[in-house]
Every structure is written in structure tokens, then in C-alpha cells.
């Protein structure tokens, strides 16, 4: 089995954003979108492929150390042009093809007017830990 992260974005570079952004959906449309994702997660729980799912608030800031003895430095809120992660789902699946299949399905969640948004998701394999066999 292999673990993959499926990363959702509120905002991405323009060429990847070809659907109406969520802040322009009606509450019912947002509910339908979230309902689709929950049903999707439930199916993964049933199939034994679910690991984790979290949604993120669009708020937040960049933070870094201000140096020894100084408070951390923040820069925020995020500029309009910044990629904005909306949340993620972690799956544990047999192979890459299955991960692709699931990411495709998640991407088709409904948006404005109930139409599938077919958003671009980032599909990222976890870095493997060191194997027991090294040659």
C-alpha cells in the first residue's frame, strides 16, 4: 500500500482556476460540495483506504523566526495572488492508478450550479521510510 496526499486549493495560479471560486457559491452549493466530499470519504472508510481528511480556514499568515530572543515575524493575511490550500485528504491505496482514480473522483465535486468543478488537485505520494532491505 502507498499513502498519497490529495491537496485541495481555494486559489491557484490562474491557468489552474477554471471554475467559479467557492466564495461566489450559494450556501446550498457549498453544502452540496461538502456533502459530496463527506460521502467520498465515507466510501474510502468502507473500503479501508481512508487515513485522514481536514479542511483549512482561508485565514492565516506566513510566520518565521525573528532570531534568538525575538518574537516570531508574521506576514499576512495572504496576498490575493498566493496559492491557498483549502484542505486535504490522505489515502492509503494499493497503487498509483488507484490514487489517480480517486483523485479524479474527488475533483468532480459539485460547485456553482451543481456542476462538477473538475478542479485540479495536487496528488502527492508520501516519502517512503527506509526499507529493511537496502540492496
Amino acid at each position, binding site marked *: *500500500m502507498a499513502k498519497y496526499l490529495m491537496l485541495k486549493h481555494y486559489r491557484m495560479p490562474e491557468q489552474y482556476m477554471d471554475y467559479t471560486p467557492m466564495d461566489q457559491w450559494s450556501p446550498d452549493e457549498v453544502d452540496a460540495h461538502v456533502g459530496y466530499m463527506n460521502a467520498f470519504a465515507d466510501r474510502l472508510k*468502507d473500503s479501508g483506504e481512508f487515513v485522514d481528511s481536514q479542511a483549512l480556514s482561508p485565514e492565516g499568515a506566513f510566520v518565521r523566526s525573528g532570531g534568538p530572543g525575538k518574537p516570531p515575524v508574521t506576514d499576512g493575511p495572504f496576498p490575493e495572488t498566493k496559492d491557498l490550500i483549502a484542505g486535504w485528504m490522505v489515502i492509503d491505496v*494499493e497503487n498509483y492508478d488507484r490514487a489517480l482514480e480517486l483523485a479524479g473522483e474527488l475533483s468532480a465535486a459539485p460547485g456553482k450550479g451543481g456542476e462538477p468543478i473538475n478542479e485540479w488537485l495536487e496528488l502527492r505520494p508520501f516519502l517512503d521510510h527506509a*526499507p*529493511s532491505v537496502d540492496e
Partner: protein
Amino acid sequence: MTDPDLLAEAELRELVPAVIGILVSRGADFATAEDAVQDALIEALRSWPSDPPRDRRGWLVTVAWRKFLDTVRSEGSRMKREERVMAASLVEPGSSAEPGTDNVPNADDALDLYILCAHPDLSPASAVALTLRAVGGLTTKQIAEAYMVPEATMAQRISRAKSRIAGSRLNRPGDLSSVLTTLYLVFNEGHSGDVDLVAEAIRLTRTLTSMIDSAEMDGLLALMLLHHARRDARFGPDGRLVALADQDRTRWDRKLIAEGIEILQAALARDELGQYQAQAAIAALHADAQNVEDTDCDRDADDGGGHGLGGPPRRARLITPVGR
């Protein structure tokens, strides 16, 4: 967890396949029996530290059998199940906690269990999970932690695996190669959580080699021991992987290497070469060398000349260095 607890748990887990075998031989179906033994196991982990039974296996059999009956009775509206309970109840040896004569486990039962859990219809991940639970006696929680998934996910994976093989008979002769693959997968998963899957894979493979006469099974055990012997040297102080050539060979476990080589020699002498013996032979060449330059590269993997590891010319070459 204190050491006595760990010891008790290891001892407890060794009983699991035998107890499943006993329940099945009394007429329980595998899936329900396996659940019942898992429930009994969890109860044992809870109650034994303060109240250890005199006869551990008898206790497990009795508790698991009661749990099995509870389950089947609670699903009793289904006629087929009821009939099965009736049939099973006929051989129930009473409610005494003392073991009856049918509590003697059959070595073949345990072997059948290995084969069933590695059924070719199961995905490798499902076979691994089921093997660790039914044969290894690990709890779902421990397996979930080792594979870093939620317990509910692992429970679901195991439950689906069991329904997938629901129609399979426990006593049907099966293919050992999928058992070997499954154990090797467990071995390669390494170590995370509080369960050492490397040690577990070696334990299960060792148990299996005592039950069955197979050169490839011995080859797999040798391969595991030879790799495991280098575990301490495989990581530097910073936790980074150290390449074979750079490893501190004084940190290799010579005792394990000697055991691996001895097992491998005996296997190779039987002239039934297979991939695990071939891999073990390569590992033995590395393990046997005092430094990289000493590694007997003439006989190492790259002189196969395209005929792969399985052909007779290689075998003859492999036996020599291993036999030194």
C-alpha cells in the same frame, strides 16, 4: 509496557493461530472464529496481568468459544447460522475452563491458517493485515499503528479480506508462494509504532519453517536473518540511511549472519533453487565479507550474464562462497 508484560503478550500471541484452529475444528466458520479469538485476546490482555490463568490456551479457547456462540446467537434469526450453532453445540465440551481433548492444536491447522490468510484472491495489503491478525495474533490497533492508518480503516480492511475469502475452506491445500510473498512484505515494512514488524516477520517465518519442509521457505528465513543482522549498522547517528559500502561492519550481528548462512547452505544443498534462496545467497556474500573490496563480486549478482538468478550455472557458483 514492562518486560514481563511484553513476554506475556508474546506468549499469548503464539497461542492465537492454534485457538482459531480449534474453534474452526469445532465447526465455527473462519471469519467469526477469528473475530471471537480477537475479542478473547483483547480480554486476555486486559485481565491476565492481574489474574493470570493456569492454563492459558484453555482459557483462550473457552472465552473465544463463548464469544463465538454469543455472536452466532445474536445473529440467530438466520436459519443457516442457527443450524451451524446447533451442529457446533453438539461438540461443545461444556463450559468448564479446563481444556478438553479437542483443545490439542493440530500443526496442520496453523499451516492452513497461513495459507488461507495469504489467499491469492486477496490484495497483498489485505493478506498482510489478515496474516498479522489471525496468525501473528496482533490486535487491529497494533496493526493500524504499524501501518499508520486509523484503526477503523484497518478493521475495515481486515473485515473485507475475510468476506472475500468467506467461501474458502481452511483445509484446502494452497500455494505457499503467496505465503512467502506476504511474510516478505511484512518484513519489508520495517518498524513503526510499538510493533517491530521485522521481528514479527522473522518469528512467523521461523514458525512456518518448523512446520513445513520447503527450501524456499528456509531461503526466505535466511534472507531475513542476513538482512536483519545489518540493521544496527544501516542507520547513522543522525538517523540517515548508511549505504552498504559505508556501513560499520563491526556492528553487524555475526551470530545472526552465521545462522542465516547455515540455514541457507542446507537449503541450497537440496537443489530446489528459487528467488529467496538466490537473494539470500547474495546477501550472504555481502555479509561474509570483511570489507567492500573483499566482497566476492565474481559470484555476485552482476555476473548472471542475462540468464537471471534461477539458472543452474548460478546455483553452482553460489554454493561455493556460501560454503566457505
